[in-house]
């Protein structure tokens, strides 16, 4: 296979058999040089500084520093090198996290040759590519703090407690009614007040009426 640019690649992984297999696979690309393999997290930075590879294929689980730490350290001094995570984990959150701290790709270890080619030869320093990951459907709904709707963060349990507070129940009464300890009611109360940025029950009542909560 041919691609116009010549690429130097560093493989960081502690599983020798996997590194061997991968190297073997990558030899199919003509204009690709594997300039090194590193099997310890602590040796990566010095190697990168010395040899400046074009692409780094980086595992996450490593003896010494882990992949995320290495990624952060490299990005502190080099924004050009293409870094692709190559991990057994197929987690969406991990991929998201790696993207956030500067990875250019997130490949799972069962990635096929086509994906590898794409990552090594096609993507640029500002791109992000990831393999098909598991659990992309029915993700949890991440809630963001909403300036306009303070109630977005209030859980259903907290709403229940707000209703009781609006009705004029005291913390001990709520504790008795919900079969929870007084300390728990007070924790809820404090959290509600924090989230809604109110200081008094009267303000809470007003806010609750405004939002049709009672």
């Amino acid at each position, binding site marked *: 296979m041919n691609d116009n640019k010549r690429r130097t690649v560093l493989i960081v992984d502690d599983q020798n058999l996997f590194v061997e297999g991968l190297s073997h696979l990558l030899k199919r690309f003509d204009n690709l040089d594997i300039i090194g393999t590193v099997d310890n997290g602590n040796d990566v930075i010095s190697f990168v500084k010395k040899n400046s590879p074009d692409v780094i294929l980086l595992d996450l689980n490593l003896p010494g520093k882990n992949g995320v730490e290495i990624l952060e350290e490299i990005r502190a001094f080099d924004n050009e090198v293409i870094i692709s995570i190559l991990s057994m984990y197929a*987690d969406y*959150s991990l991929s998201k996290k790696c993207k956030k701290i500067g990875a250019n790709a997130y490949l799972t270890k069962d990635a096929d040759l086509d994906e590898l080619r794409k990552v090594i030869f096609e993507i640029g320093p500002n791109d992000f590519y990831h393999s098909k990951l598991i659990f992309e459907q*029915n993700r949890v709904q991440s809630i963001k703090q909403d300036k306009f709707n303070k109630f977005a963060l209030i859980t259903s349990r907290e709403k229940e407690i707000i209703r009781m507070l609006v009705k004029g129940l005291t913390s001990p009464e709520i504790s008795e009614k919900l079969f929870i300890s007084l300390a*728990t009611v007070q924790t809820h109360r404090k959290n509600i007040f924090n989230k809604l940025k109110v200081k008094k029950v009267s303000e809470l009542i007003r806010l609750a009426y405004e939002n049709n909560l009672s």
Partner: protein
Amino acid sequence: MRTIFHKGFLLLLILFLSWRFGMAQTCVLVVDSSFEQASLSNYVSYTSVKSFQGFKNALDSIEYSDLSKHCEKEMSPGFSEEVFLISFEIENFNNSNYDYFLELNNPHIDSIVLFEFIGSNDVIEIGVAGDRMLFNERPIENRRFIFPIALKKGEVKKFLLVVNKRNASVSFPTYLWSKEEFEKLEKRNGLFYLLYFGGVIFIFLFSMVIGLMMRNVRMLSYGLYAGSMGLYLFIALGFGFQYLYPNSITLNNTLRTQILVISLMTFVLFSSLFMNLHKEYKRQHKVLMIIFSFLVVLSLGSFIFESFFFQHIIFFLNVIYILLVLTLPIFLYSAYISYRKNPTLIIAYLIALSALFTGAIINTLIEYGWINEDNIPFNTVLLGSIVELFVFSLTFITEIKTINDKKNSLLQEQAKQQKKLVSAYVRGIEEEGGRISKELHDNIGSRLAILKNQIDYLDIDRKKIKDQVVDIFSDVRQISDELSPSKIQILGIVPSIEELFSQLIAGTDIKVNFYADEIPDLNNDNAIQIYRVIQEIIQNIVKHSGATEVDCQILKGETNDEGALIMIDDNGKGFNTHDIDKNMGFGLKNMRFRIESVGGKIEISSNEGHGTHIMIWCVRG
């Protein structure tokens, strides 16, 4: 039957009365060789004068002949400002000279002068004593007032005793002793008082040390009470003047009242704490604490404004008595209402209290002259105090023992529980290991074997084989994930939990609303335990709750050490919380064990039909 009984009773009464009067009519106390001790009250004639301008004037104002007219009158003066003039006659019926001791059994009398009659109308002073003199100026150094009297063989002497006992002082039972008998009595008494006050000091030190060690305010207050009460009795019995401050007349006059106020003060405090009013009946405790603070002020005042205090001592004594009368019903009421909660404590308190008060009341009756002291040869307050201290100490000892026993059995229970959990944990690991081994062997192993055989054929379907490898690959990944959540370290606890939710609700219709603050990194061990517990919680929600919506919020703890507060609420069918408390399932117990093992706290609340609500407080570790 009845008439015989009546007649017998009447006969006895007549005999008794004639015996008493027979004694009283002998005005001269005749002492022979068998004489040991006699109360003078049956042998005296006395009179009293109201305004007292010194002994000479007092003597001038009475007719001596009056004194001999009343020899049947018993001497029970009670409270009074009067000065008493008492005359008595002693005849030595022995064959030799004899030494006697005249004892006034009251350690606090202002002044006493003993005169001897010369002829029928004149007297000479033979001894002076009283609280207005230093201790070592007394004729005999004793906590009471003792006058030595010597009579020659066959001699008859008539004496006049003038007692100025001031308003505050009380009765003064007077006895004549043979010197030998008196010394025997002193030895006996000395041993008794040594035991009593030694006991008080022991109780005081013991309670203070144990109270401080166990940080038990009840024990401390008991020590203070026993100590101050003991000190009060020590002073009241005259030992204070003898041993503590023999050179200070002022202290002898003031300290007794001051310590009395302190004893009352500690008594109020102790009673409230002893009955646990400070924990269970706060209102009663508050009232008692107001009285307590008043007594503190009073006692401080009595030291700081000493002269003012003692100028108005009658007023302050009345205030103290009123306070005492006020507190007593509060004590009794508190005892009544808290009886149900702690019957043994209250019974002990009532026995102790009634012992002391009976002693004090009898003593007061004696002081007012309503009971003849001759009938009660011991100090009733002291006796009441002994019973009281015994009962209280016994209560405390039993209490400490009960606490200790409880602690021991709790420890044993805990150890048992721990053992159970550890063995369950080990069993869990074994089972898990077995399951994974079976999975690797039966599932992965046999699938790889089939794959190997398929590759041997020439007409292999590469696509089919690749799909099989992908399947095996994903199974291995899942097994590895279950074995160890190693990615927590890489990902951090919050995204790991988010991922966990996504993984476990995959393929269900459950909607998860997830919110997390930026939280500080947790210690890895803590993070793993919390991750495992949340894993179990989500599995329970997915498997058992039937919930359609789950709220998960991870909030930053208030302090840096606090780490995070994790709340997980579902809208599932819930369960009855009372059932888990009684018979908490192993899974729930295990969750609690895990969380508590890393210093956290978990609270699970649920109501049938109203979902389950879980809060986990975790520390950073």
